[in-house]
């Protein structure tokens, strides 16, 4: 996606500068492309108690696979590490839990100050089942504002495990909440929004309800992350985007007709795949035999199939 967009942008700029020689423009384009390649990876802070679903969320947003089976449980200071995901590297900051003790508060404040001023976006993950947001609200109003009120605007508050919200009767075929669940999820979201705004009145963000395990509302979650990021850095996150497929959890019999498996032969499936590739992908694929093997191995891995 990014390469195709870049081509279009350079095309637009070239059209605006007909008097610039091709050599001069190529020089400019190469310099900018070099800069694009060297752009630091996205820096994402994951904030939340152990067991709230941080590593699962990372996996379903970026296909980290077995690289991150669980976050290092670390309550002393943040764990920062580069994670190799399907489409590149992401720098992850696993932030310590909140409200542990008054003694640890000063240390945590230092940690937050150090990390939050240098990240692109912070994902604050809450368990949709639990109502205990009071400690977070207190923390927000006192500590985060003391660092920088604009930091709070870089935070995305998300409720994971919405499939377990009362009465926990998630639709097994459609992979969506029941009507009653939907109402309760909305109520929880509005409650959390209200409490955050009480703590940080300038906060203009949204609260997203999702389920990492059910692959539910992942594009909505990703969009919220993008909107909280600095404008010039959003493309870097999208470059790593590899959302798990919601339809995988939907019974085939209730999927829209065009998304149901159509029993194509392997040859038909490969032909369709090749037709949907960009020129650059096709050129890369045809470079040599090893590229073909790597390409299909990566494709199978992304689709959750075992490598042969």
């Amino acid at each position, binding site marked *: *996606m*990014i390469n195709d*967009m*870049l081509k279009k*942008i*350079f095309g*637009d*700029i070239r*059209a*605006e*500068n007909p008097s*610039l020689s091709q050599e*001069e423009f190529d*020089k*400019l384009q190469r*310099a*900018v492309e070099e*800069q*694009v390649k060297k752009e630091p990876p996205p820096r994402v802070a994951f904030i939340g108690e152990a067991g709230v679903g941080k590593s699962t969320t990372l996996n379903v947003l970026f296909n980290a696979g077995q690289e991150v089976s669980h976050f290092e449980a670390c309550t002393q200071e943040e764990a920062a590490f580069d994670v190799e995901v399907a489409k590149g590297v992401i720098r992850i900051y696993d932030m310590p839990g909140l409200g542990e003790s008054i003694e640890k508060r000063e240390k945590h404040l230092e940690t937050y100050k150090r990390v939050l001023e240098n990240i692109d976006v912070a994902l604050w993950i809450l368990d949709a089942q639990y109502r205990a947001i009071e400690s977070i609200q207190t923390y927000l109003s006192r500590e985060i504002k*003391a660092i*920088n*009120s*604009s930091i709070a605007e870089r935070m995305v508050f998300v409720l994971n495990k919405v499939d377990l919200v009362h009465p926990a009767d998630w*639709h*097994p*075929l*459609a*992979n*969506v909440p029941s009507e009653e669940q939907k109402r309760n999820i909305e109520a929880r979201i509005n409650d959390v929004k209200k409490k955050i705004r009480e703590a940080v009145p300038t906060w203009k963000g949204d609260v997203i309800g999702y389920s990492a395990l059910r692959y*539910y*509302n*992942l*594009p*909505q979650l*990703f*969009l919220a992350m*993008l*909107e909280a990021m600095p*404008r*010039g*850095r*959003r*493309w870097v996150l*999208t470059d790593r*985007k590899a959302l798990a497929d*919601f*339809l995988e959890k*939907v*019974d085939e*019999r*209730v*999927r*829209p007709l065009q998304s149901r498996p159509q029993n194509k032969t392997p040859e038909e499936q490969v032909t369709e795949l090749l037709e949907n590739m960009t020129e650059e992908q096709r050129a890369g694929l045809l470079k040599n035999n090893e590229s073909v093997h790597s390409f299909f191995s990566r494709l199978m891995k992304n689709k959750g199939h075992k490598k042969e």
Partner: protein
Amino acid sequence: MSATTYDQLSSAERSRIEAMVKSQLDSMDTANRQIVQRTRESLAYYVANAIQATAAFLGYAIALPLAYAEMIVERFVDGFKEGWNAAFDEIRRTRNT
């Protein structure tokens, strides 16, 4: 719900379930379109800034398409607002200590 139960569903119920899935997919499609739009804007903003800086460094004059140039103007305005707010945050913090 087992396969047997699905087969026992009325066609009205099956349609209702299919509509639930379609509604969710529509919501996801809207989000996906906005992701593409934000990404496109972000990359254009990044490239516009980078190409201007690089051209200046190399001594070339470069004109940007109007839409890209407007983004750079917005950056200066946003940057000014951010600086203004940060200055007032600091004043408030100093007063409260």
